[in-house]
C-alpha cells in the first residue's frame, strides 16, 4: 500500500567500525535511502573530526576549477557533457592519488602559463623594436636632408659645417655631449591614445626645444598579460643637451612608453633589423610549440575533468556525512531514518562496504524507539514525480496519512480539461508534451540551466495528460479552435414550412427561432457531445451557461464527497473510531444531504422535464432557497418534495451540534475515567503498533540486535502510559505480544495524555473545525463554479480571436488580395493562439485546478504537516553541485 500512503520509516542506530566507515557511508550514498541525523549539533564546523579531509577536497575542487577555466579559454576543446555514473564509491586512497595528480597538473599549467607570458613579452618587445627600426630610418633621412639644407644655409655662419647629426661613423647615437650642437635621439613606442598628451607635455616641459616625430604602427599588438590588442605608434624625439635628455626620458617613463636604443647609422640599423627579424622568427617557433604543448595537456585533462569532479564531490560528501557521526575510539555511530522495506538492501550495502574496506567486523543496525514524527518518504517514478511535486508544494503529507497523489493523477488533468476544453489547443499541448517525453533522455543529458524550460520539462507527463484530457473535453464541448465539428449530423433541422417562408424575410429579422417540437429530429440527441448547431446559434451561451454551471456543481460536490471519504480511510487507519462517529458521519450527512440533494435535483430535473413541459419546470435556485426557508414549493419537482426537504434540512441542521459537541464531550469523559476506555490507537508519529512490528520481525528475520531489552522498556513506559512506543526488534516476538496489552492499558486515547487536558482548547478547536466545514461546504461548492467561468472565458477568447483575426484572412474570395493576406493572418492567428490561449489560459486553468485541489479538496482530509525525507544520495549531490 505504499502508493496510497508514504513509506513506513523507523529510526535506526548505525554502528560502524572506523576502518569500514568510509566505505559503508559511500555505499549508503550510492543507494540513497538513508537520512542521517546530526549527532553533534553544537559542534562547530571547524572542530569536527574530518575537517581536514573536507579541506583537502575543497582544495582539490579549487584546482579542478582552475583547470576547467584554463580548458574553457581554449574554445575548441570540448569537455564531455554526459559522464556515465559508474555507481562506484571512490576508494579512500583514490583521494590521495587524485590530489597528487591534480597538484601536478596545476603546477604544470601554471608554469606553462608563466612561460607563455614571458615569451609573449619578449615577442612584443622584439616586434616593437623592429617597428622602431623600420620607421626611424625615415626620420633620420629627413633629418639628414634638413641638415644638408641647414648646413648649406648656415655654411656662412658655421664654418666647420658641423653635422647636426653625425651620420658617417661619428659618435654613437645617443645623447650629444653638452655644449656641442649634436642632437640627441630617443626612440620608442607609445600607445596611440597617449600620443597627443605626450606631445603636449613634451612641448611644455622642454619649452619647445625638442622635436618629436611619430608614425603609427598599423597592426595591433597583443598585450601579454591581458591579451588585449593595442594600437601603438613609434615616436622619435630629437633634443639638444643632457638636461633636456633627462627630462625627455622622465616624461617617456611617465607615459609608460618603452624606449629602444636606436643606432643612427643606417648600416648599423640594417644589421640590427636583420638580427631582430631572425630572433622574432625563432621566438615565434618557440611560442607555437609552447601553445601546442599546452593544448595537448589541456585536452588530456579535459577528457577526465567531469569524472574527477564527480569523484571529488562524492568524497567530499562522504566526509561531510562522516562529520555527522559520533566518534569514539573503535567505532562511529549515528542515528538515521530508514524505510523499513529497504532494510535488506541497506544491510547488503553495509556488508559490501565492510568487505570492500577489508574489515572483518560487520556493521550493526539496531532500532531506536522514538516518539518523533518520521520524515515522509513517497517513492515516485518519473511519471508520478510531477504530481507528487505539486502536492508537496502545498504541504508535505503527515506521516502515514492518505497521499492524495494517486487520485490527483486523474482528477487534476480532468478538472484542468473541464476549464480548458478545446480539441485543437489540447492537441497542441499533448504534442508538445509528447515531444518532451520522446526526447527526455537527450534533454536530461543536456543538463540545461534554463529554469523555466526545466519546469516545463519536469511536468511533461502532467502536461501530456492535461492535453489528452482536453482533447476529450473538447470533443464533448464540440470546440476545435472555436469551431464545431459536425461528425454525426446535427439533430436540428429547419422544418419545411419555415424554410419556405425564409425567402420572404426582410432584413431586420435575421434570426430564426427553431422550436424543438418541429425542428428536433427523431427526438434523440446528438450521440456524443454538444450538437454542432449551437455554434451558429445566437442563444448558445444561454444554454451552455446553465449546463456548465450545473456540471460544475455536480463535479464539485462529487470531488468534496470523495475528500470526506478519504478522511474516513485516515480515521480507520489511525484507529480513531471516535473521529468516524463524531466527524465523518455528520460531515457526510451535511454535505451529502444538503448539497447532494442539490445534485440530485439537478439530475432529476434534466431527466424529468423536456421541451414539452419545460415551461412549468421549477427554478432550482428558488427551490433550494425555499427549502431553507421551509416554505412550500409552488411547483413540485416530484410528489412529496416538501416532506423530503424538511427531513433533509433537519438532519443537516442537527449535524452541526453533532460535529461541535460529541467529540469534546467524549474526550472529556475519557479524561475523567481513563481505565474505562482501553484502546490501542496509532499515533501519527509512529505508524506501527506492536502487532505490526512483530510481523515484520517474523518475516524478515533480520540479524539486528536489540539495544534495550524488553523488560527495561516496559519499566520505562509503564508509568508514562504510552502505547506509541515501538519495542525494539527482537527475536522474542511472542514476549512482546504478551506485554502489549499491559502497556496499552496505561495509555488509551489520543495524544493528549501526556499534556494537561485543556477542555477549552479542544472545544475551540472543534468549533473552528465545525464552522470551517459547514461554511466551507457552501463557499467551496460555489468555488467550483470557476470550472464554468474559465471554460466560458476560454471559449469566448478563442471565438473572439477567430472572428477578429482569422476571419479577416478568409474574407477574400478572389485569389489576388486573398493570397497576400491569408498566410500572414494565419501566422498571426497561430502565434496569438499559442501565446494567449495556450500559454496564458493554460497557466490560468492550471492554477485554478491546483487551487481547487489544494483548498477545496484537501481541506476535507489532508493534514500536510510532515517533513520530507532527504536521504544522503550521491545522485542528488552530483546533479546539484551548488547546494552544499
Amino acid at each position: 500500500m505504499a502508493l496510497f500512503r508514504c513509506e513506513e520509516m523507523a529510526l535506526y542506530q548505525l554502528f560502524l567500525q572506523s576502518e569500514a566507515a568510509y566505505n559503508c557511508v559511500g555505499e549508503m550514498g550510492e543507494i540513497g535511502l538513508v537520512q542521517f541525523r546530526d549527532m553533534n549539533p553544537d559542534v562547530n564546523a571547524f572542530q569536527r573530526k574530518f575537517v581536514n579531509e573536507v579541506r583537502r577536497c575543497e582544495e582539490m575542487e579549487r584546482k579542478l576549477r582552475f583547470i576547467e577555466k584554463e580548458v574553457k579559454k581554449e574554445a575548441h576543446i570540448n569537455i564531455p557533457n554526459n559522464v556515465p555514473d559508474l555507481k562506484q564509491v571512490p576508494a579512500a586512497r583514490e583521494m590521495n592519488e587524485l590530489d597528487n595528480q591534480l597538484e601536478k597538473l596545476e603546477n604544470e599549467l601554471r608554469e606553462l602559463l608563466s612561460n607563455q607570458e614571458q615569451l609573449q613579452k619578449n615577442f612584443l618587445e622584439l616586434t616593437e623594436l623592429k617597428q622602431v627600426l623600420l620607421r626611424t630610418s625615415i626620420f633620420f633621412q629627413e633629418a639628414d636632408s634638413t641638415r644638408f639644407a641647414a648646413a648649406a644655409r648656415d655654411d656662412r655662419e658655421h664654418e666647420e659645417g658641423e653635422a647636426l647629426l653625425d651620420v658617417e661613423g661619428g659618435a654613437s647615437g645617443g645623447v650629444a655631449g653638452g655644449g656641442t650642437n649634436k642632437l640627441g635621439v630617443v626612440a620608442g613606442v607609445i600607445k596611440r591614445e597617449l600620443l597627443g598628451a605626450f606631445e603636449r607635455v613634451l612641448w611644455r616641459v622642454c619649452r619647445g626645444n625638442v622635436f618629436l616625430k611619430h608614425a603609427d604602427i598599423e597592426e595591433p599588438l597583443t598585450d601579454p598579460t591581458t591579451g588585449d590588442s593595442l594600437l601603438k605608434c613609434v615616436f622619435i624625439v630629437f633634443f639638444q643637451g643632457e638636461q633636456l635628455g633627462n627630462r625627455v626620458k622622465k616624461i617617456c617613463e611617465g607615459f609608460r612608453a618603452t624606449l629602444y636604443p636606436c643606432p643612427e647609422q643606417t648600416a648599423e640599423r640594417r644589421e640590427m633589423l636583420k638580427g631582430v627579424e631572425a630572433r622574432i622568427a625563432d621566438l615565434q617557433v618557440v611560442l607555437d610549440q609552447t601553445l601546442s604543448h599546452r593544448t595537448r595537456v589541456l585536452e588530456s585533462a579535459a577528457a577526465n575533468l567531469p569524472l574527477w569532479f564527480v569523484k571529488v564531490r562524492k568524497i567530499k560528501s562522504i566526509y561531510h556525512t562522516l562529520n555527522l557521526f559520533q566518534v569514539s575510539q573503535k567505532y562511529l555511530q549515528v542515528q538515521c531514518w530508514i524505510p523499513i522495506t529497504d532494510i535488506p538492501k541497506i544491510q547488503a550495502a553495509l556488508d559490501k562496504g565492510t568487505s570492500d574496506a577489508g574489515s572483518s567486523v560487520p556493521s550493526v543496525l539496531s532500532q531506536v524507539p522514538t516518539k518523533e514524527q518520521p520524515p515522509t518518504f513517497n517513492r515516485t517514478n518519473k511519471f508520478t514525480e510531477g504530481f507528487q511535486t505539486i502536492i508537496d508544494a502545498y504541504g508535505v503529507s503527515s506521516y502515514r496519512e492518505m497521499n492524495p497523489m494517486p487520485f490527483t493523477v486523474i482528477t487534476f488533468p480532468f478538472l484542468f480539461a473541464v476549464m480548458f476544453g478545446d480539441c485543437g489547443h489540447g492537441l497542441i499541448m499533448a504534442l508538445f508534451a509528447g515531444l518532451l517525453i520522446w526526447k527526455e533522455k537527450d534533454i536530461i543529458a543536456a543538463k540545461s540551466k534554463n529554469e523555466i524550460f526545466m519546469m516545463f520539462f519536469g511536468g511533461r507527463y502532467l502536461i501530456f495528460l492535461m492535453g489528452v484530457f482536453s482533447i476529450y473535453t473538447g470533443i464533448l464541448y464540440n470546440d476545435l479552435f472555436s469551431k464545431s465539428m459536425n461528425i454525426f449530423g446535427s439533430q436540428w433541422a429547419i422544418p419545411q414550412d419555415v424554410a419556405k417562408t425564409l425567402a420572404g424575410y426582410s432584413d431586420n429579422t435575421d434570426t430564426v427561432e427553431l422550436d424543438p417540437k418541429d425542428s428536433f429530429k427523431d427526438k434523440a440527441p446528438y450521440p456524443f457531445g454538444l450538437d454542432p448547431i449551437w455554434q451558429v446559434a445566437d442563444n448558445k451561451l444561454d444554454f451552455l451557461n446553465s449546463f456548465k454551471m450545473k456540471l460544475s456543481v455536480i463535479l464539485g460536490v462529487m470531488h468534496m464527497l470523495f475528500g470526506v471519504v478519504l478522511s474516513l480511510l485516515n480515521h480507520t487507519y489511525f484507529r480513531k473510531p471516535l473521529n468516524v462517529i463524531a466527524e465523518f458521519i455528520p460531515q457526510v450527512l451535511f454535505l451529502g444531504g444538503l448539497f447532494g440533494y442539490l445534485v440530485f435535483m439537478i439530475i432529476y430535473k434534466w431527466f424529468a422535464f423536456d421541451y414539452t413541459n419545460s415551461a412549468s419546470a421549477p427554478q432550482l435556485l428558488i427551490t433550494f432557497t425555499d427549502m431553507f426557508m421551509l416554505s412550500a414549493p409552488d411547483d413540485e419537482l416530484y410528489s412529496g418534495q416538501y416532506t423530503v426537504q424538511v427531513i433533509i434540512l433537519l438532519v443537516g441542521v442537527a449535524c452541526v451540534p453533532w460535529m461541535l459537541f460529541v467529540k469534546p464531550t467524549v474526550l472529556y469523559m475519557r479524561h475523567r475515567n481513563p481505565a474505562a476506555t482501553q484502546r490501542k490507537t496509532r499515533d501519527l508519529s509512529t505508524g506501527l503498533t506492536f502487532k505490526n512490528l512483530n510481523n515484520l520481525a517474523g518475516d524478515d528475520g533480520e540479524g539486528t540486535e536489540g539495544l534495550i531489552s524488553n523488560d527495561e522498556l516496559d519499566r520505562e513506559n509503564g508509568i508514562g502510559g504510552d502505547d506509541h512506543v515501538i519495542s525494539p526488534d527482537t527475536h522474542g516476538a511472542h514476549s512482546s505480544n504478551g506485554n502489549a496489552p499491559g502497556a496499552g492499558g496505561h495509555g488509551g486515547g489520543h495524544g493528549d495524555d501526556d499534556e494537561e487536558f485543556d477542555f477549552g482548547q479542544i472545544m475551540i478547536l472543534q468549533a473552528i473545525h465545525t464552522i470551517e466545514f459547514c461554511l466551507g461546504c457552501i463557499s467551496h461548492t460555489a468555488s467550483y463554479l470557476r470550472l464554468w467561468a474559465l471554460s466560458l472565458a476560454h471559449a469566448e477568447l478563442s471565438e473572439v480571436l477567430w472572428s477578429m483575426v482569422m476571419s479577416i484572412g478568409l474574407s477574400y474570395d478572389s485569389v489576388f488580395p486573398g493570397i497576400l493576406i491569408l498566410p500572414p493572418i494565419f501566422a498571426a492567428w497561430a502565434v496569438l493562439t499559442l501565446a494567449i490561449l495556450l500559454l496564458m489560459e493554460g497557466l490560468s486553468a492550471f492554477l485554478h485546478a491546483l487551487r481547487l485541489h489544494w483548498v477545496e479538496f484537501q481541506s476535507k482530509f489532508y493534514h500536510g504537516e510532515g517533513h520530507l525525507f532527504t536521504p544522503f544520495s550521491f545522485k542528488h549531490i552530483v546533479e546539484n553541485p551548488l547546494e552544499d
Partner: protein
Amino acid sequence: MAVPVFCSPFTSFFCAFIGLWGLIMCPIMGAFYYSHAITFVEDVPYDVEPSDFSKDDLESTYEKVAINLFISTGVYFVCFMLCLCQFINRKTSLIP
C-alpha cells in the same frame, strides 16, 4: 545545403513550427471549405440580401476561399522547408 544561416536556432525552430502548423491546418481547412462545411458559414464572404440568396453562389464562394487556403498551404510549405534548412544547418542544440 548551402543556405546562409540568418536566424537564431530558436527563431528558426519557431518559424518551422508555425510553418508545419500551417502546412497541416490549411489543407484541412481548405478541404472543409471545399465540401461546404456549415461550420464556416459565418466566415465566408457571401453577404447578400435574403432575397438574392443563391445556394450555388454560396458554394462557389466557398470553393474560392478553399483555393486561397490551398495556395497558402504552398506558401507555408516553402516557409517550413526554409526554416527547417536553417535549423538543420545550425547543428546546434535547440535546448536553451
